[in-house]
């Protein structure tokens, strides 16, 4: 049977992808950001997961305002890196896992989560920057990916509670899949940042770290935080953090922290990263 082996969360700042793609990762500004992922790249190279369910948000790349799905699952065999206005990132094509993706879709719809099924979609920096941070710059990604796109652009995003419960439903779906697969769930986005208006540049280091403590120790409580607290404390774009709750919901109530990293700034944003495992 398939099993959830770990949960990983990371920010997905587009400037990080640009730094890597343009050979600037060794510069003093970027070095500390990439250093925070060195352990994780080695750890993943040893763990060799088969599939990642990668929770992210599309940034007006695949979805315009014509169609705005709250939760959309990518069921295609492959996904092209999106052209976000400056040409596609020079990264490998993302290979999907249609059988598991459609199994998850069917299973969670039967658990009352009405996912939108996507059979053709380009994936933007929200998905490819986490891949780059955690796998570097290979010719081919070493894992299959099931993109799970969450609307956090048009307010309101799904509640933290809904995200947390969806994570639990995804775990039940994965554990009922017959093939022997190691599956990780990744949550991406955040941490505190605001990209528009006179308040742009807001960073809340204290709130971010306290939120992360609670995400690890008491996710039930975190799942009840209302959106307005994210907007007020972590900046208007910090509300992306609800996506981390899908990852957390896919794990046990008690988890072990394998790795944790926090850094300010990457362009406009606070970078957070954590690897969690179920306690055996």
């Amino acid at each position, binding site marked *: 049977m398939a099993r959830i082996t770990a949960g990983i969360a990371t920010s997905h700042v*587009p*400037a990080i992808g640009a730094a890597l793609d343009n050979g600037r990762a060794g510069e003093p500004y970027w070095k500390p950001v990439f250093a925070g992922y060195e352990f994780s790249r080695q750890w993943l190279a040893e763990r060799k997961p088969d599939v990642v369910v990668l929770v992210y948000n599309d*940034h*007006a*790349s695949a979805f*315009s*305002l*014509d169609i705005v799905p709250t939760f959309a699952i990518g069921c295609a065999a492959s996904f092209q890196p999106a*052209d*976000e*206005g*400056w040409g596609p990132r020079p990264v490998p094509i993302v290979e999907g896992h249609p059988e598991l993706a459609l199994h998850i879709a069917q299973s969670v719809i039967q658990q009352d989560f009405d996912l939108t099924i996507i059979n053709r979609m380009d994936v933007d920096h929200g998905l490819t920057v986490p891949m780059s941070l955690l796998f570097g710059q290979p010719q081919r990604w070493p894992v299959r990916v099931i993109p799970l796109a969450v609307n956090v*652009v*048009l*307010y*309101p995003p799904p509640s933290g509670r809904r995200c947390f419960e969806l994570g639990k439903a995804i775990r039940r779906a994965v554990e009922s899949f017959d093939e022997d697969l190691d599956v990780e769930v990744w949550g991406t986005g955040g941490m*505190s940042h*605001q*990209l*528009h*208006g*006179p*308040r*742009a*540049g*807001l*960073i*809340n*280091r204290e*709130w971010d770290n306290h939120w992360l403590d609670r995400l690890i120790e008491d996710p039930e409580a975190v799942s009840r935080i*209302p*959106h*307005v607290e994210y*907007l*007020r*404390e972590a900046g*208007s*774009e910090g509300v992306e953090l609800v996506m981390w709750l899908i990852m957390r919901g896919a794990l046990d109530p008690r988890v072990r922290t394998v790795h944790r990293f926090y850094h*300010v*700034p990457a*362009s*406009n944003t*606070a970078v957070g990263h954590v690897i969690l495992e179920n306690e055996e």
Partner: protein
Amino acid sequence: MALEKPYADIPGTVVFDADQARKGYHLNQFCMSLMKADNRARFKADERAYLDEWPMSEDQKRAVLARDYNRMISLGGNIYFLAKLFSTDGKSFQYTAASMTGLTQEAYALMMLRGGRSPEGNRRVGETPAPERSEAEGE
């Protein structure tokens, strides 16, 4: 009954909610069209003529021509859609964010290196030090 907006008192912030999305639909879809190289070329050749192909308000068109991002946001623009416009201009998120705060990009980048804008005094309108308010909050 109107939907509650508990976020309306956050200073310097326009939440892209249903009302903003309705106002900004054509503005945002115009931005989306700039993801195609052919459209970018046509827009650059004659910005006004390209804008006139869209059923946008005159205020929205003027805000685009002036690259007044705070104004575009107040008229229903969303930053991820507006990103197609500043990418067409070869500008970054950091350049554009700085332009909305009234800081130079250098001063903004330095603020970020020093840990970013503090939440202190920036959680609610009326707190001190009182931050500048954006236009849309008065609506």
